């Protein structure tokens, strides 16, 4: 399968472990259902990034599912995260948002959905560690502006719109500075009931 998917690993790094250029994210070990949904969203234009759309246009759902399963099955050690370039106050604000959210702005804690260890939940919710800061900033920014969106109800878009730009900056930098646990695996179940309804979960898809 790896030989068929050199088109993916050219940018996403060997076995999808992320590239050294600091943008293309790691895809290895991400939840299969999450990866499949992203591949389909790129192909069908819901996640606008022309190089991915162009590459995936001739592929059907069955192959996209196989590709997602392949990369989800790869459990690889993470490279050390580069040290953060921002001040301690910013990192403290980032950590507070991730662990506790911001009740004044109705922002739930990242941990509530992405797991206490932030390594993801089940097959739907991706982990947040081991991602480049530029990638995290770009995704949260894209959700705020509507350039990236998921199936309704689009919980991440709602949350991102409640975040001030400096909060996006703070939590992206804190997340990108965290070491990834050696056996970073998605947890089976969320620690608390989901604070928002999300269309991009298998349960929501089953209900439709």
């Amino acid at each position, binding site marked *: 399968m790896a030989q068929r998917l050199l088109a993916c690993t*050219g940018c996403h790094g060997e076995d999808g472990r992320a590239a050294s250029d600091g943008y293309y994210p790691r895809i290895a070990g991400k939840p299969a259902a999450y990866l499949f949904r992203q591949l389909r969203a790129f192909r069908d234009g819901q996640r606008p990034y022309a190089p991915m*759309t162009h590459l995936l246009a001739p592929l059907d759902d069955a192959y996209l599912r196989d590709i997602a399963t392949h990369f989800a099955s790869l459990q690889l050690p993470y490279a050390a995260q580069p040290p953060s370039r921002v001040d301690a106050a910013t990192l403290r604000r980032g950590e507070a948002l991730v662990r506790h959210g911001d009740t004044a702005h109705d922002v739930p804690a990242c941990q509530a959905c992405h797991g206490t260890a932030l390594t993801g939940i089940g097959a739907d919710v991706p982990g947040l560690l081991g991602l480049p800061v530029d990638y995290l900033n770009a995704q949260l920014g894209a959700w705020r502006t509507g350039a990236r969106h998921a199936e309704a109800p689009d919980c991440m878009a709602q949350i991102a719109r409640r975040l001030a730009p400096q909060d996006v900056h703070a939590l992206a930098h804190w997340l990108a500075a965290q070491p990834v646990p050696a056996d970073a695996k998605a947890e089976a179940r969320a620690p608390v009931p989901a604070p928002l309804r999300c269309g991009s979960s298998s349960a929501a898809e089953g209900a439709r």
Partner: protein
Amino acid sequence: MRPVLAGLAGLLLALTAALWWLNVRGDGTLQGGAFDANDPRLVERGAYLARAGNCQGCHTPRGAAPFSGGRGIPTPFGTVYSANLTPDGPTGIGRWSAAEFRRALHNGRSRDGRLLYPAFPYDSYTRISADDADALFAYLRSLPAVSRPNRPHALRFPYDSALALAVWRALFFSPGRFEPQAGSSDAWNRGAYLVQGLGHCSACHASRNALGASRDPAALAGGLIPLQNWLAPGLAGQPSQAVAELLQRGVSDSAALLGPMAEVVLHSTQHLKPDDLSAMAAYLQSLPQADAPRRTAESPAPSQLQRGERLYDRHCAHCHGDDGLGQPRAYVPLAGNRAVLRDPPANLVQVVLGGAFPASTAGNPRPFGMPPLATELSDEDVAAVLSYIRNAWGNRAGAVQALDVQRWRSSVRP
């Protein structure tokens, strides 16, 4: 003065009459076909024909409801938006009669008589039989209705005017019908019917003049797809067995269909009956091949070839081999590959920069993909490696320069 003025007025009147006549000829009277639009066999046949015509390629935007329209077709004259073909009354074709649908296919007119832009390839569809038109209509009427108002085209002046369209039609469109060629086999005629009509192959595989009309569409001598900068190669005289296999599987031992054609394979040709694919391929093989154009580009300089060889060893040889022979069923050979030698080298530039997958098909469900190298190679690098593969292992073709790479980068991404 007076006779001159009178003469001019007369000329104007004559031109207007000619323009009018050239636009309504062949319209005939609107007569509905006598058929049962709910007949499941008719609907099924229509579904197959819609596949053969790849109607959804334009009428279903990415990720949208089937045939709900609104996909932008980029043209040198502006963007044309496809129509909603679902049976919704106010926004789709729910209020159309079968006769009005036939007239749209055959004569390029909307329900209200308005002229349609030829991005809708009615210069090909005019050859679709009345029975097939009715089957397509029955199929479209069976789809779930989607309420989505049609988006107005975004064309530049003067192309946005009805007069310009009428003049274009007077110059370049004449309604016709498919006439089977006596003395040729049924299969050949079936192939000709599909290629010239529903398949509308000439929309891409024939070059276009300055006003966007196909030059010699029957010859299928190849053409550059405007703005997308993919070269649709000449189809005449190609070996029929290989062509039929490519249309069905998307790849063969020696070639792969990439870019816009990979999407045609995914959505259309892989679903066609083997008999129809063989018929189309046999017809294409029988077409006389145009003389190869004289080579104008110069041979590459030795220094460029050396640079290209180094880059090939680092980025390409792993899959395509030191001998350029690739691996059957996985990596296409570059030695002796027609697509490598073709001019202009637009497709090579697109594939090296953007990477590509062939279509996933029943015969090749998990295709091997080519990685995009845009972030790794400069324009000079791309030019060097392309010049190298066009002149290694017995290949002989003109040098590619960095300027060519800039020129053939796609200006529009899907």
